[in-house]
């Protein structure tokens, strides 16, 4: 590992869909490999959770003793950041990046401890589960029904020099759980009935795989653009990773259908969805339109889409501006009736968009009720 920031240590994070997939085990294995290669390796903090095989693989690595923090009359053990920095190893292994420290500690979060250690020029290996990422927390809570309180900002993972996914099939993880390799026997039944259900694990695995795919895509984009004549383009490169959809809406009933279609497409692509309404300057809305707009806002909120409102009398220019700002890769618009009169002389909006936004797909969403015979089962 080599950090792009001079003098700062490198951070490598092992991420998994859930406890028990083998993140800590893998971190310790890499620690041993580095030790054999001649590096100075220490364990800054290890949580074995009573797992015998994890404890065994930690043997042979120096452990920095934890620091006692007094909280409400009890002494709790937390990672001793000062001792690690003072010891100044080449590589430090720190488990559970999302952990919240006991009140009274120097930092409230372990990832802040890790930042300090990295700033001291020490490389760090760490572990985290996907549901601890702030941006995914709500989504995963809905998937699993379990809210995780300890979260880390996505930027922490974004700043990591390497992110490694520790993947395991849900079936294999459940086998490990039943064999008592994840939790003690008395906790297995409760775990199987709550968080460790096959549908939960499958969904979490999908989230973790998608997250890492985006991470790889992001790193590739950055690597391709940096340090070359295209370096200046990097600043203009869209911030979005993967696809980002933009649906053009108007405050009328048909827009609901367009938004549903766009959302479904976004789901399939694993993309973010933005909704754009370009309001002509000075135009006031009827009560019906106001209600339609409010309903669209509600729909956007429930779907997790972002609604953008712009005021402009040049629809295409406004769309271009928003698409560039949001890093849109895909534009969806509804069907418009053929133009009449002088409108025939104007270039149709989809064609203008294709000219203004090269490289952005434009899709016209059909009204499927027109082809339905109404006798669907």
């Amino acid at each position, binding site marked *: 590992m080599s950090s792009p920031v001079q003098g700062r240590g490198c951070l490598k994070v092992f991420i998994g869909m859930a406890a028990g997939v083998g993140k800590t085990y893998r971190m310790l294995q890499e620690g041993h490999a580095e030790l054999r290669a001649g590096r100075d390796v220490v364990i800054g903090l290890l949580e074995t959770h009573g797992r015998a095989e994890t404890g065994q693989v930690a043997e042979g690595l120096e452990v920095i003793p934890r620091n006692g923090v007094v909280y409400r009359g009890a002494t709790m053990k937390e990672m001793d950041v000062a001792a690690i920095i003072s010891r100044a190893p080449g590589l430090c292994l720190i488990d559970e990046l999302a952990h919240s420290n006991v009140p009274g500690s120097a930092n409230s979060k372990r990832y802040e401890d890790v930042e300090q250690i990295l700033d001291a020029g020490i490389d760090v290996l760490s572990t985290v589960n996907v549901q601890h990422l702030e941006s995914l927390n709500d989504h995963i809570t*809905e998937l699993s*029904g379990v809210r995780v309180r300890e979260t880390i900002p996505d930027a922490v993972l974004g700043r990591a020099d390497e992110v490694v996914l520790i993947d395991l099939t849900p079936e294999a993880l459940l086998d490990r759980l039943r064999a008592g390799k994840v939790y003690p026997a008395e906790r297995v039944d409760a775990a199987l009935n709550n968080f460790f259900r096959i549908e939960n694990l499958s969904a979490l695995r999908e989230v973790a795989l998608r997250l890492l795919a985006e991470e790889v895509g992001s790193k590739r984009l950055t690597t391709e653009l940096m340090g070359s004549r295209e370096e200046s383009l990097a600043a203009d490169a869209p911030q979005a990773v993967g696809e980002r959809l933009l649906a053009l809406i108007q405050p009328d009933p048909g827009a*609901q259908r367009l938004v*549903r279609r766009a959302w*479904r497409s976004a789901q399939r692509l694993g993309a973010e969805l933005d909704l754009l309404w370009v309001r002509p300057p000075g135009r006031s809305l009827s009560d019906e339109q106001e209600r339609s707009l409010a*309903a669209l806002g509600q729909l956007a909120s429930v*779907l*997790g889409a972002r609604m953008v409102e712009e005021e402009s009398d040049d629809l295409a220019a406004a769309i271009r501006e928003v698409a560039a700002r949001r890093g849109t890769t895909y534009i969806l618009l509804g069907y418009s009736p053929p133009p009449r009169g002088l409108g025939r002389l104007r270039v149709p909006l989809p064609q203008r968009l294709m000219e203004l936004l090269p490289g952005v797909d434009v899709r016209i969403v059909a009204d499927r009720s027109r082809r339905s015979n109404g006798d669907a089962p």
Partner: protein
Amino acid sequence: MSPWTIFAIAAGGMLLGIGAGYWLPPHGRLALRERPRPVRHILLPFSGQQISRRAFEAAVRLAKAEDAMIMPAFLATVPMNLPIDSALPLQCARGMPLLEAIEQRASSQGVAVDSRVGRGRSARDALRKLIEAESFDRIIVSAEEDSGAGLGYEDLRWLLERVPAEILILRPAPEDTRRISGGAVSGHF
């Protein structure tokens, strides 16, 4: 007649023609007289993955008779451990195809549709908020849904007591097992 007179008569005739074209049907005063009444709305709330075909057909019949618009409304429930304004992609994955199916069916029968999504801590809470925010003339609900899947009998009683609109509650019909579900969407969704 001088050329100027001929020109004046021609110009007057043209102006008269343009005026008549505007004021006569379909754009003019006659059309104004025939301008439709404000559109009536029929709310068709649901919270499960399917709705009773009878409820849907009743809504379509009434909408046709009254020249009304159907307002199918998906009621999403937010678990207590989430903020009330949370996105609910899993529930939407079930509710959106059903909204689409209802809209396609109703549109194909010539009935206008304006969909809605309500969100609350329970189906009743979502419906209450929707009713506060929207304007409608009638609600159609089916009494055959069990309370776990959507609006139960207690919710129906609440509707009758609290909602100042015509409420059509369809009596349970065990022999009628026909449903409309998201699977009925025509084409990909």
